């Protein structure tokens, strides 16, 4: 008689959290700064600094979903190749799941 085998329950399917991308050993965010005809920056970044009506703020990996209007001023992106700054007019900033979109001229 064959040994009774214990039925092993199949592992429960669990939703895997979206992994934060890592560049140079540090977690990064995907940043795209663009206008209708111009992409100012697209790529990984360690952080992003900008200013809205409330004041200056930083976006880092694992930031909560965020939507705001930027006031005209400087946007600084800390990229693996160094800091990149952009002087922007009005813009809309959208953060979701470690992805930041800055819509310039909106």
């Amino acid at each position, binding site marked *: 008689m064959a040994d009774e085998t214990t039925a092993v329950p199949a592992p429960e399917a669990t939703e895997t959290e979206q992994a934060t991308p890592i560049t140079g050993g540090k977690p990064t965010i995907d940043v795209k700064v663009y206008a*209708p005809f111009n992409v100012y920056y697209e790529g990984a970044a360690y952080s992003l600094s900008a200013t809205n009506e409330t004041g200056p703020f930083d976006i880092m990996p694992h930031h*909560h979903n*965020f*939507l705001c*209007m930027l006031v005209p001023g400087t946007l600084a992106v800390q990229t693996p190749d160094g800091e990149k700054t952009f002087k922007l007019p009005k813009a*809309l900033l959208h953060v979701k799941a470690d992805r930041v979109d800055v819509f310039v*001229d909106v």
Partner: protein
Amino acid sequence: MRRPLEIKAEEASVRSVVSLTSALESLSTMQIAKTKNKVLISNQFFDAVWNIYKQIRVDVLFNFGRKVDEKPIDKELLILITAKGGLSGDIDQRLIRRVLERYDETKNDVLVIGHHGALKLKQAHVDATYYFDLPEKDYINVDPLMDIVRKYSQSRIFYQDYVSLSQQDIKDVDLSEVVSSKGRAADLSTLDDTVISEKTYIFEPSSYAVAAYLENSILRLTISQFIYDSRLAQVASRFKAMSAAKERSVETAKELHTEYNRAKRNQVDTRLKESLAGLKKIRAAGGK
């Protein structure tokens, strides 16, 4: 029959028209490729913003974002997007015809973008209430236009739509209808729990302020998108017109060349006949 030299001169002038239309046709081809590429790039941008706007609109609270603090003019503003200059085929003429079907002096004010359309409208004895030149640069500042649009209770935009290289349509839409229909999510069940709402997002300075700003922006983007789309249709129409003009001038040049050969042959025949007649006379005189 016309003299061969006369025909030759006309043929030369038609040949220069062929060269000119060929050059303009090539130029239009390059412009189409460039403009089409730009429109595709800009559409990605617009789609991304529309997507955010669409999600915000799902939450009914956001509908109060718009501020209306002045009484609008009780007229419909007709916005015409036309070409900067001529050589754009019949596309502007068709647009003006469409506008005239709707235009009622007592019910409408007219805003024209583009010099060519303003001229055509003037020829149709309609005075534009507002006029804007169409800028050549990629970035179009539509803020002055927005200030006017905001004054009116209704706005209808007449624009040129690129379907293909050989087909460009004239369309007109109510601006507020476009914004609301594009902003409306087609199927609410397709939107997941990550919809942009106060539960899932942080807004700064406030959700209402962001929604109001976005509603204002979306109108601006809609107008910009219509202008960019019209530009593409205009260059395509120019290409079509130049191709047709080139074909016509090539045909005319061929016909003139045939006519020249016929006239030349005719001239030679006439001279030959005259020579033969002279020879006959001489022979007849010698025989006496």
